[in-house]
């Protein structure tokens, strides 16, 4: 028999290592301190300055620290935050906010009208490069009205300013921090938590703010941990090292054990096939209507996200939600599609190309394939071009596409959603691919009314116009998930995906 001298030692070493690991495995690790709730997210916190963040997890993390003047409740209605009330005057061109008293920043300074002025002026300063400054573009002056009131003077009536003020990008800042220039390193806010540490690409940790105006914070520490893939988040939940996993993939959440509560909410976003309607076959209204009629949006939803979502109209959520069934051809109607093609003078159909980016929306290719096969039934050929995220964004910004499968941010206020695309002088007028005086009139009017009833009528007209002209093709809104371990009670994920309900949750 041939022996392999020395191998025995190596074999013992390998087996020993495995035995150690197996022992450790048996030991089971539930080491997270009960005082800490660990959230897991695939993205990492990238920036700390609330005025310049755009990454979703940055918003979630910094919203634990910062407050805004106005916020949304669970029904996506405007509700007080640091402003206790507000009123319009001067024909809708002045908004006066009454501010909350006895609110302190975690650096010890007191929140007053001076903070509102300094915060919003910083937003409007081009050097800050706050992309959300367009929300208050109509604000010409910010005037303190005593210590606890402030007036925003507008160039024209603009009710959507209130919705804009819910954005973390317009959060209330400490004047001391602004003056010291420390906002990008040490967040200081008035919210339920105060900043502890940030390890780029890894974790973001906050501790309870004992002086929070909202009362006692029941979870003393929160960590937002970056786990780059959702399967690993599922594993961490089962290992007990993460208490709440923020996820988007139903195929993973469906396989979590029953001990983990999976909350699902419709995201404040929407999937649409954006169209460039200015040139080519898509400039013809009847071609676009033919596409709208050829679509089976429920089937797109089923094949791309396993049916985990809802078919939507232009306004997916909030008090002005539009009904998807009011659209032209609410369900697939191939004969109608063919009749529209006849009217367009294209009885044999036409060809166009739509771009997708699975980097930006993992489901976009599946959506495109489903839409492609449906359009084919009416004789319309859609070529698919899948691009890397940067190439997609570059082409999107320049309007260099015929169709683009997009996941766009939504807002409870339809003007905030679509004003940026279709209003006069809209920042995103080029990628919107469409402009019309009639649509601009509807948008301008909808933004000038200040009563909910008048706004509802205008926003209904907006939705009707967008769908009747098949400006784009709205597809669906998908669910997002919060997988919560059984020892966390009282946390709920709202459509805005803010994590602040953790402040009043309990951990057993």
């Amino acid at each position: 028999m041939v022996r392999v001298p020395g191998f025995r030692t190596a074999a013992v070493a390998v087996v020993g290592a495995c035995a150690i690991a197996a022992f450790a495995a048996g030991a089971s690790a539930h080491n997270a301190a009960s005082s800490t709730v660990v959230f897991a997210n695939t993205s990492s916190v990238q920036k700390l300055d609330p005025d310049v963040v755009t990454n979703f997890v940055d918003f979630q993390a910094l919203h634990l620290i910062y407050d805004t003047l106005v916020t949304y409740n669970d029904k996506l209605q405007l509700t007080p935050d640091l402003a206790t009330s507000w009123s319009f005057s001067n024909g809708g061109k002045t908004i006066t906010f009454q501010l909350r008293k006895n609110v302190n920043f975690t650096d010890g300074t007191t929140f007053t009208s001076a903070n509102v002025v300094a915060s919003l002026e910083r937003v409007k300063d081009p050097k800050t490069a706050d992309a959300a400054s367009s929300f208050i573009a109509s604000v010409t002056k910010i005037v303190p009205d005593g210590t606890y009131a402030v007036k925003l003077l507008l160039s024209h009536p603009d009710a959507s300013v209130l919705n804009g003020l819910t954005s973390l990008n317009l959060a209330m800042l400490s004047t001391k921090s602004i003056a010291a220039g420390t906002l990008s390193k040490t967040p200081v806010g008035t919210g339920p938590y105060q900043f502890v540490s940030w390890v780029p690409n890894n974790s973001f940790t906050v501790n309870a703010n004992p002086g929070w105006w909202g009362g006692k914070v029941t979870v003393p520490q929160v960590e937002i941990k970056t786990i780059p893939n959702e399967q690993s988040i599922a594993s961490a939940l089962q290992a007990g090292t993460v208490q709440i996993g923020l996820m988007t993939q139903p195929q993973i959440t469906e396989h979590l054990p029953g001990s983990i509560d999976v909350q699902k909410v419709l995201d404040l976003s929407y999937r649409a096939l954006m169209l460039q309607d200015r040139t080519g076959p898509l400039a013809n209204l009847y071609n676009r209507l033919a596409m709208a009629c050829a679509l089976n949006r429920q089937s797109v939803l089923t094949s791309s996200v396993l049916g985990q979502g809802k078919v939507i109209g232009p306004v997916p959520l909030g008090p002005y939600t539009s009904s998807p069934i009011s659209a032209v051809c609410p369900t697939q109607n191939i004969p109608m599609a063919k009749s529209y093609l006849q009217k367009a003078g294209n009885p044999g159909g036409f060809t166009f190309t739509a771009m997708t980016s699975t980097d930006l929306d993992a489901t976009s290719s599946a959506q495109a394939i489903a839409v492609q096969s449906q359009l084919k039934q009416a004789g319309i050929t859609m070529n698919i071009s899948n691009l890397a995220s940067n190439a997609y964004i570059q082409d999107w910004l320049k309007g260099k596409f015929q169709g683009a499968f997009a996941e766009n941010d939504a807002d409870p206020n339809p003007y905030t959603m679509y004003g940026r695309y279709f209003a006069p002088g809209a920042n995103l007028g080029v990628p919107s691919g469409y402009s019309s005086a009639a649509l601009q009139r509807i948008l301008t009017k909808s933004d000038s009314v200040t009563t909910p009833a008048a706004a509802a009528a205008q926003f209904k007209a907006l939705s009707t116009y967008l769908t009747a002209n098949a400006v784009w093709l709205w597809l669906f809104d998908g669910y997002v998930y919060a997988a919560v371990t059984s020892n966390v009670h009282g946390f709920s994920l709202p459509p805005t995906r803010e994590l602040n309900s953790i402040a009043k949750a309990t951990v057993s």
Partner: protein
Amino acid sequence: MFDSRNRALALTIVRRTVSTLITLLGVAIIVFVILRLLPGDAITASLGVNAGLLSPAQHAALVHFYGLGKPPVQQFFSWLGASFSGNLGVSLSAQQPVSTLIDQAAPVTLELSIVSLVLGLLIGVGFGMIGALKPGKVGDEVGQGIAVVGLGVPVFVLGTALVTFLSSHFHYFPSSEPYASLFSDPWLNIQQIFFPSLVLSIGIGAAIMRTTRAAVLEVSSQNFVRTARGKGIKARVVTWRHLFRNALVPIVTMSGIQLGYLLGGTVIVEQIFILPGLGRLLVTAINERDFPVVQSITMLFATAFVLVNLGVDVICALIDPRSRGR
């Protein structure tokens, strides 16, 4: 005083060092050019489609902030010059010195690489020797099975399967706890590093095993081995001094090649096992178009790879005098 053998060795080292420097300069240029040729810029990478919401004044402020207005050649030489002086720049997203980020991440990747290589060598050389000395027997068959798995199953599949198995059956996923260094919490560190290293080592071990097996089989049929056995030299001595030592050059060469594979593998494994190493830092930086970080880490990986190859050449020259001066 150099004799002719040492002179040949020194010449080999000098020649390889010069070619290493040229290679690194080439890598620096290629990385720099490729990053700039990609569509989009740091602004669109940072803001996405929201970049379209910026006013011209805001856009100009960001162009200045990211240094996008400077000519590319000026950007390249200022980066290269600063790198030589140890200043790798500041991360555009984290707003921290790149050297600080690398200092935090490099020990993780280094430890992962070393442990993976050691495990890979144990698996590869061990099963390779068994296979060569007892071809067709159970040990050889097991080794061949491991080789098939290691070469055929991608690292991300093995890693994901292992993580899922351990967490669902044992509620065990040590890497999901905050990373502990070897000095702060050795026991947790071993648990966090062992499993990703095991996943990486199977791929490395498979290649080394096949090389070892083939090389030892080739050497074992040569006359000097038969002579050594015929002279009654102990089996242990024949195995290690005659067989293994003469088969060492291809094994060392293959191990060097596998280190390159290892650097690529750490990028994937660090994602799955949540290790805050260089691979994860690189992926994040690429996604965010954080040029200073991407350039620095790519150069670091390239430097490590060419230095390992340089080391392999030197070791081979030491082992086999015939390779000197080639």
